[in-house]
């Protein structure tokens, strides 16, 4: 039996992390994410875990990487300015394949921006904010219940694929309170990283089997190997031979590709013979869905697609819709149209992309998106 609870978005993330088996949380205070660390500082010890408030966000992500290298699931929670500071070690975690979960409640940027206002402008930073190229998974919840569910998914994906996972929420979701269904903890699937390692004499930390995912036993658990952010071969020791550089970068950046179907999640509503689609994510997806319903009630056929996984981007699913419709409307709370750009890249001209950007720190209203659909339908956009 699941139970119904009134919960804030940040609280859902904290509660779900405990259910996922997270044992170390480190953080630095920042609006609008602070409730996550406040709740975990209170609750973690009773769950056999430890919380620490560090001197900055760099140290916070450092702590969770260290804790995870020692075998414990770990999380940090932050917002734009802190997320910017974490980029260095986010790339490191991806490079050394230590699983971590970062919760980023996006707020208005750039710089200090606006701490209590929502934005969706860290999409590109999540994937490309760190130097070089390395893999990430990013999930965009659009309700408190989904924030709960996706936090557990984030830990599962992170452990399964030995990769950092970012929960990319926004200020609206962070602070909104909703009644949600909490599943019975026995019914929740919890995935832990593999431990079926070869004996020490044969063990090489980054020699992968056909899964493509390395097995890294906890530091101090009996295996003596080296973890290094420098280019390394199977043995984990720095090595700048051209073939090793090539192999190392190729391997970490391709390892998620064959798991696309397991990682990429979307929600969609399809109408027969529709010519318009609306693509929205995170908090914006809710007024967008409302606008689509309103249009359908008025007899305008509109498809709706919501990427739940934003990295890797659901390019196959988006392309499939683009092949059916003429125009795709992408409302998002940023200036450039960061996801609109990803849509264009995915659909290679199969449909026209219409941007609707809002940067005032106010959420989208159903009517704003609805009017845009009407304009597109009339051929005015």
């Amino acid at each position, binding site marked *: 039996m699941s139970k119904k609870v009134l919960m804030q978005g940040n609280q859902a993330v904290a509660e779900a992390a405990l259910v996922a088996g997270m044992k170390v949380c*480190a953080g630095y205070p920042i609006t609008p994410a602070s409730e996550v660390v406040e709740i975990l500082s209170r609750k973690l010890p009773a769950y*056999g875990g430890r919380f620490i408030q560090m001197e900055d966000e760099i140290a916070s992500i450092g702590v969770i*990487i260290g804790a*995870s290298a020692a075998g414990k699931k770990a999380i940090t929670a932050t917002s734009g300015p802190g997320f910017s500071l974490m980029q260095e070690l986010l790339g490191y975690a991806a490079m050394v394949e230590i699983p971590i979960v970062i919760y980023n409640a996006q707020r208005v940027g750039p710089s200090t921006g606006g701490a209590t206002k929502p934005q969706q402008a860290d999409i590109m930073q999540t994937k490309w904010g760190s130097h070089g190229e390395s893999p990430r998974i990013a999930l965009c919840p659009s309700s408190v219940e989904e924030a709960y569910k996706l936090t557990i998914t984030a830990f599962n994906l992170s452990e399964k694929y030995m990769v950092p996972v970012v929960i990319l929420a926004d200020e609206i979701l962070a602070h909104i309170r909703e009644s949600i269904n909490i599943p019975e903890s026995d019914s929740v699937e919890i995935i832990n990283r593999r431990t079926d390692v070869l004996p020490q004499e044969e063990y090489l930390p980054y020699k992968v089997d056909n899964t493509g995912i390395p097995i890294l036993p906890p530091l101090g658990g009996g295996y003596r190997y080296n*973890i290094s952010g420098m280019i390394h071969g199977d043995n984990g020791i720095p090595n700048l031979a051209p073939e090793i550089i090539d192999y190392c970068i190729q391997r970490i950046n391709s390892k998620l590709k064959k798991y696309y179907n397991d990682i990429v999640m979307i929600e969609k509503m399809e109408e027969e013979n529709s010519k318009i689609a609306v693509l929205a994510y995170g908090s914006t997806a809710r007024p967008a869905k409302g606008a689509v319903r309103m249009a359908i009630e008025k007899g305008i056929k509109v498809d709706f697609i919501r990427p739940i996984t934003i990295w890797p981007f659901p390019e196959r699913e988006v392309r499939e819709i683009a092949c059916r419709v003429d125009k795709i409307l992408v409302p998002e709370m940023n200036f450039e149209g960061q996801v609109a750009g990803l849509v264009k890249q995915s659909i290679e001209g199969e449909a026209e992309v219409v941007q609707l950007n809002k940067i005032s720190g106010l959420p989208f209203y159903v009517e704003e998106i609805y009017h845009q659909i009407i304009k597109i339908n009339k051929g005015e956009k």
Partner: protein
Amino acid sequence: MSKLDKYLRLDQFPHFACSGCGHGIALASMIRAIDKLGLDQNTTIMVCAIGCAGRLPVYLNFPSIRTPHGRALTIATGIKLATPKLKVIVFMGDGDAAAIGGNHLIHSARRNIDMTAIIAINEIYGMTGGQYAPTTKSGHFASTAPFGMIEPQMDACKLVEAAGATFVARGDIYHVIELDRLISKAISHKGFSVVEVLTNCPTQFGRRNKNSKPSEMIKNIKEMTITKKQAEQLSKEELEHILLRGILVDKECPEYIEEYDRITNFKEEASLK
């Protein structure tokens, strides 16, 4: 075959360090201390970061983790929070400890988590080509201080003492037997312990400062410090520019994780509720 060979990843040799580099003396001292204390090689974790000092622990046969520049202490903190029973030793150079990682050093000292930081000070960024460090003495030359160092030299021992470190010692690569003892005491100390080791860099520092002969440099290092006992004979003014050697701080304070577990009533394998 030396009895200390078991502590080395011999298949990784030859190492990258220049001839005449003093870092190896510091590292060997640490290994002797570990051997003397009989630490378990599987549960003693080497944490290091970037630079010459930052790369050396990779040659040691322990579980090891090498982090981005300056972040070693943050990763070490995470390892301790996850598994407090592990011995964690962080080996750093001037940049890792005193510059890019300076904030982490201050707060690690203040927090007092049971681990040991060994800081090899050679006044220079050797790996990147001899740029000046916060620990470069005023007037010395570096590739980015071609007219001489203007900034005053940082005293990392005073810094961590002020921040609250519960064990602080300074040794050097001339007084090696003393250094073995200092590192051994630091590792045995309950709480955050720091050992600064004065070492030499003939290639990048010596060459620019008219003294690249390793033996001469080591002799200079010998003259750089005095013991606390010797210091008693000197006036306050005379002491101002002299570094003290030996154990500078040794006090008992509550260790962070023990305190945390006590006040939070922490239980290791508590089940979900």
